[in-house]
């Protein structure tokens, strides 16, 4: 098969680009420790969330020193907690989100960050973020979930450590 010299050069450059892209992601996962969503969250019965020890009473739970678990139920068209009550966590803590859906597929996106996951009924999405200084964040649903999808939003408040009055797990 006849391959032109320039073609060979281009082919080599293309392969280099491809391998380079895979290498950066591999480094991100192993070296920089960027956490991604896998199957660690396990499953849950979407019809029986009320009987679940945590999703039955969703909210912020303390799991260790400066470590918190946040259980969030997404449903047409609100986040529990998030929509009527903000998710409140202290600054400079490690927060693990556990997100599931009570009905259809939703999205859970902390606006302007890479804290972003799908909320799929029956599945629990689990991911951990490092929270820094005090700030308010918006939360929105980024997967179409029905006629009022555009109204599905919430907030997360990162408050100074000394103003934090403890987790309200099951608010």
């Amino acid at each position: 098969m006849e391959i032109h010299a320039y073609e060979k050069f281009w082919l080599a450059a293309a392969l280099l680009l491809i391998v380079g892209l895979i290498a950066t992601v591999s480094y991100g996962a192993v070296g920089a420790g960027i956490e991604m969503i896998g199957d660690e969250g396990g499953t849950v019965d979407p019809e029986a969330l009320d009987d679940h020890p945590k999703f039955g009473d969703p909210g912020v739970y303390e799991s260790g020193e400066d470590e918190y678990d946040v259980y969030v139920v997404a449903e047409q068209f609100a986040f529990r907690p998030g929509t009527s009550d903000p998710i409140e966590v202290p600054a400079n803590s490690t927060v693990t989100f556990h997100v599931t859906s009570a009905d259809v597929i939703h999205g859970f996106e902390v606006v302007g960050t890479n804290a972003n996951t799908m909320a799929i009924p029956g599945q629990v999405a689990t991911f951990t973020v490092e929270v820094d200084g005090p700030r308010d964040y918006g939360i929105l649903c980024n997967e179409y979930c029905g006629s009022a999808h555009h109204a599905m939003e919430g907030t997360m408040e990162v408050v100074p450590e000394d103003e934090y009055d403890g987790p309200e797990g099951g608010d």
Partner: protein
Amino acid sequence: MATFVDRYPEEAAVVRATFVVAFVSLGIGAFFGLIQALHRTGYVRILDSVDYYTILTGHGVLLALVFTIFFLLGLFTWAVARSLERPLPDIRLTWAWFGLTTTGATLVAVAILAGLIPSLGVSADVLYTFYAPLQAHPLFYAGLTMFIVGTWMAGADWFLAYRAWRADNPDDRIPLQTFMVLTTMLMWYLSTIGVAVSAVFFLLPWSFGIVETVNPLLTRTLFWFFGHPVVYFWLMPAYLLWYTVLPKLAGGRLFSDPLARVVFVLFLLLSTPVGIHHQYLDPGISEGFKFIAMTNTMFLLLPSLLTAFTVVASMEHGARQRGGEGYFKWLGALPWRDPAFTGMALAGLMFAAGGFSGMINAGMNINYLIHNTLWVPGHFHMTVGTAVALTMMAGSYWLVPQLTGKRLYSRPIGLLQVVLWFVGMVFMSNAMHRAGLAGVPRRTAEPQYQSFDFSTALGSVGELQAQIAFGGFLLFVSVVLFLFNILLSSFETPMESPVDDSLPAPLSGAEGSPLVLDDLRLWTGIAIVLVILAYTLPLGSIVTDAGLFGDSPGFPVLIDAVAMLKEVVA
């Protein structure tokens, strides 16, 4: 004899019919696009935001499935008859698949548009991806199934034509255009298994109430099993035109036939075992499986990068044949006044930009920043929305005269049209990418929220919205110009040769490409093995998690009508 319509009048009639369906869908879909661009930026809101999702579903289905695939059906019919130099084996089979695909597409369109008239009690506001447990009317899933089965019949038609040709030409290489059609269809057969299983075994019985629940992650994964290869099903007609027609329009000939075959084989092998890259953020699929999908995806860049080389090299060769010189000055010698050439060249240019934003999407970790934001539609309006759609429109300026025996009504209007599309897309797509970086979500009627604002790194949200609305307006005007130009062309008087339809042989011909490239059985076998490797374990674990039929009851999108019905019954 003069041109395609004179040599193959019956095939030309089918191709014209598929193009009519494609262009009607293009017109309606583009109008819906204009409504969306003005609605979500807040400039003009003629509909309630609830109806935005009906329009959005219609826009996605009519443009991404109906326009592109009907154009493909016509183009491939043209390419097979033309390159095998024989009519299709039985024109009744050809009309049968046209009838089935058209009926299926019409049922889907009716199910979607009925959502605008609540009293009908039919709705399919489930968007192009129809993720369960959102539930559409059964008509939607039934029409979709008919449409897919119709495309399978079309593939069978082309394979039968090839078999008849092979009986008469036992030792010849498969003509390049037919080779492209056959490899594309093999990829399509393999990948549509996912959506067919999802619709026939799970969604249709569930929408009829025969089974009560569905496993949302399973049907979603089956959708993406089909949902990524379908983008190559859109793209391969554009590639066929870039490889076999664009070099001729540029004044030259294809650079390399063997490399073209390699590219299509790579697409057959790699298009399907990548779908999970749309599910990087899905719980229930382990990171390892996502990593495998990402690796395959990155290697899928290779055939597109090779295409970029071949297309540019062929254009340069054409320009030099026309007297072009120098390192870059040859660009000026290209036939920029020809709308078919200019449209395809601009489409290719934008595809390069779309390819780079696609690399970001494919990056498993950086994807988290842009997943389901406006960045994603920004990306695919460059790829399917320009590389594919603009190539199809530009290609029509050269193809339609061969199907009607009539010249194009106006080349200058055609030129204005393709340039307008490019400019409109630069505004709209660039602004969508930037808005996505600020976190603005896609698929949302009103991306304004009560409790927070979006902040952009550069410029302002208002400026981005102005660009999206303005770009969308230019794109709509471009479609209107295209449709009028094609419509007015049909009133021209027939002539002997309305367009130069000869295609010169490649610089490096088929004789230089290894025979193994034409071994379609081998490549299909490898493609099946790759799919089994990529999908067996993830699908197995999804089914183990929640069972084949899962735990999720249906959530019909027509909540009001259901409530109304309950009242009537009570």
